[in-house]
């Protein structure tokens, strides 16, 4: 799989919660050669299945990455045809002014985010970020044309192609979590090479960025997987502002989550599988809430054992999220290796918390 191309296509299709259908359709098409079946769930999750070879009932692994991205929704069309916005998901306000956006009206429109210019602002105002409610999107269209094409509720997205930087690094919009989807794609391709015993569900969820609206919970309920691996992005090291306990160098391999949201036996399984493959990994310490789909999946039905595998990503929630193709590739290989190890013995052991192992 050409990971750059996969990211570029998924990034083009990405959208805010509620508008994930294009990504789901794209996954159905791109992953079709490696899947036995695929469908969409009631809330819009994408669910693909690569069937295992064990006799039924087979154990199953759900690999989960979210399809939705942060962005905005149009709340109002102003006099002059300017749009007012509300954030959808955890938008970082720092990169907004001057940013080009795509407006998903009756057709895709291009706009620029503007505000009162600096020379009309007080020195105090210039030191502060403009509140989202004071920003407007300029479409360069007459007001009547805007009103014909755009309505409140339409999605607004960062406009930024995925570009290749040096050393296998890539930058662009919405690599959170198209990087996670690409990891699952790599694993699917890897699994297709030879038969695997457990079922492997490749899942794209809706609504992760909107917190409690997460589609992860419904996916866990619906699929009742023996275990779930949430594939996410985590904070890549970059100068300034890093939390030293929560940043991971690009190229250091996938980060394996450890903490309340991560089943200890799965943590060990990921570590030993990485050692067998000779892949570099790091550990991401997450004592409580992981801020991922794994949080709601862990308590679905009578409980689902969960693991979190994350790709380091710089500048999260900005239009220029930056990650490493190598990390995506090795995370995919690791995910496939773990999926191959899943059998009933392992699944039964996941319910066994006595200290003898």
């Amino acid at each position: 799989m050409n990971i750059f191309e996969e990211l570029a296509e998924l990034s083009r299709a990405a959208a805010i919660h509620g508008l994930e259908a294009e990504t789901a359709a794209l996954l159905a098409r791109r992953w079709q050669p490696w899947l036995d079946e695929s469908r969409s769930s009631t809330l819009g999750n994408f669910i693909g299945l690569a069937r295992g070879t064990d006799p039924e009932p087979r154990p199953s692994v759900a690999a989960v990455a979210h399809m939705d991205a942060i962005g905005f929704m149009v709340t109002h069309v102003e006099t002059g045809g300017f749009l007012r916005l509300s954030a959808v998901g955890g938008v970082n306000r720092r990169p907004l002014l001057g940013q080009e956006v795509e407006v998903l009206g009756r057709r895709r429109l291009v706009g620029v985010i503007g505000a009162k210019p600096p020379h009309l602002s007080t020195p105090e105002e210039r030191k502060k970020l403009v509140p989202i409610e004071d920003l407007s999107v300029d479409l360069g269209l007459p007001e009547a044309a805007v009103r014909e094409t755009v309505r409140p509720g339409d999605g607004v997205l960062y406009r930024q192609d995925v570009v290749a930087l040096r050393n296998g690094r890539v930058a662009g919009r919405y690599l959170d979590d198209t990087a996670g989807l690409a990891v699952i794609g790599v694993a699917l391709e890897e699994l297709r090479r030879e038969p695997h015993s457990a079922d492997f569900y490749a899942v794209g969820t809706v609504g992760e960025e909107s917190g409690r609206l997460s589609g992860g919970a419904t996916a866990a309920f619906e699929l009742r997987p023996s275990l779930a691996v949430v594939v996410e992005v985590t904070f890549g090291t970059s100068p300034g502002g890093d939390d030293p306990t929560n940043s991971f160098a690009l190229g250091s391999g996938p980060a394996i989550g450890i903490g309340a949201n991560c089943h200890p036996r799965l943590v060990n399984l990921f570590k030993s599988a990485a050692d067998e493959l000779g892949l570099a990994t790091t550990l991401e310490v997450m004592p409580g809430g992981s801020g991922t789909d794994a949080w709601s999946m862990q308590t679905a039905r009578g409980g689902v054992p969960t693991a979190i595998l994350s790709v380091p990503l710089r500048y999260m929630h900005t239009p220029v999220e930056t990650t490493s193709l190598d990390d995506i590739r090795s995370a995919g290989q690791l995910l496939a290796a773990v999926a191959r190890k899943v059998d009933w013995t392992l699944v039964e052991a996941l319910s066994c918390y006595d200290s003898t192992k």
Partner: protein
Amino acid sequence: MLRLDEVKTGSTGAGVDFDLLAALSNACGLAGDEDEVRQVLRQALASDACEIYTDTIGNLIVRKGNGPVRVMLCAHMDEVGLMVAGYDDNGFLRFKESGGIDPRVLPGRAVRVGRAGVPGVIGLPAGHWLDPADRDKVVPPKELLIDIGARSRDEAVAVAPPGTPVYFATRFERLSDKIVKGKALDDRVGCLVVARALLEADFRDLTLLAVFSVQEEVGFRGAQVAAFHLAPGLALAVDGTSSSDVPGVEPPDTSTHLGEGPAISLLDGSIVMHAKLREHLVALAERHGVPHQYRRLTTAGTDSGGIFLQRTGIPSCTMAVPCRYIHGPSSLANTDDIVAAVRLVGLLLESVDKGEFPV
């Protein structure tokens, strides 16, 4: 990288040469590094010029005609941007700003580094861990870094040595019939207006001197040099100026409005416009029904401020095409204003040729 085979003139839907404007906007030209813009203009104008040359500071001067009356039209080639000025140990680039940039537009931008256009991004840490008190704060440019994917200081220095220019990675586009979007519309719109005026000019008594100036954004330096050695009888600077006709701003603070014609300056921070020349321009526009407006902002500087004090003084005035989000990564302009500006420049030249304005 600019491809010169893309540069041609002639696609003039709605009266505007979109191909030339696209080539001008996409070309890169920081103050002191205007070569790409110079090449675009040279290519577009060479066949129509009597003489085309550059001077010691880098201005491109295009002469047409050989009459006794010397008229200078001036538009600047340079744009605001960044310049590589340092590195950290992990291969990130530090930069300084070239020209005035609102620091609020820098974080999260895609950029092109150097003439080769190496892709990079101006990163900023994820907001998740920010102290709530810091979430409202604008990040000072000196704290921002450019990420080109380099892994060491040595690699970064090799790819982008000190002084390497950095440009916004914006591509020129038409957002609608009349609205264009691109970087550096200040002052590539002016370059287009002057280029079109020159191509359309055919006057008996004029020596038309089109100056595509350098270093306007750092203090209109090129125009001073050109005006001295060309010694024109009058000069018109054609610039791109800010339009603040956006929500939250009421007239007259809007300064100029897109679509209401070129904005004629009364004064700015560098010059009080030559009154007779300014009044003559307005009278021509009124007589011929050319849309126009006054620029209702009286600060900032333009090339006129560098021209009018040369030698014994040169009657000078600035006229500008309104642009929204000027000095940012993506600015907008209305092609009606460009068409009207070309027309008004043509009318001025014609009237001077006929002796209606004493030079």
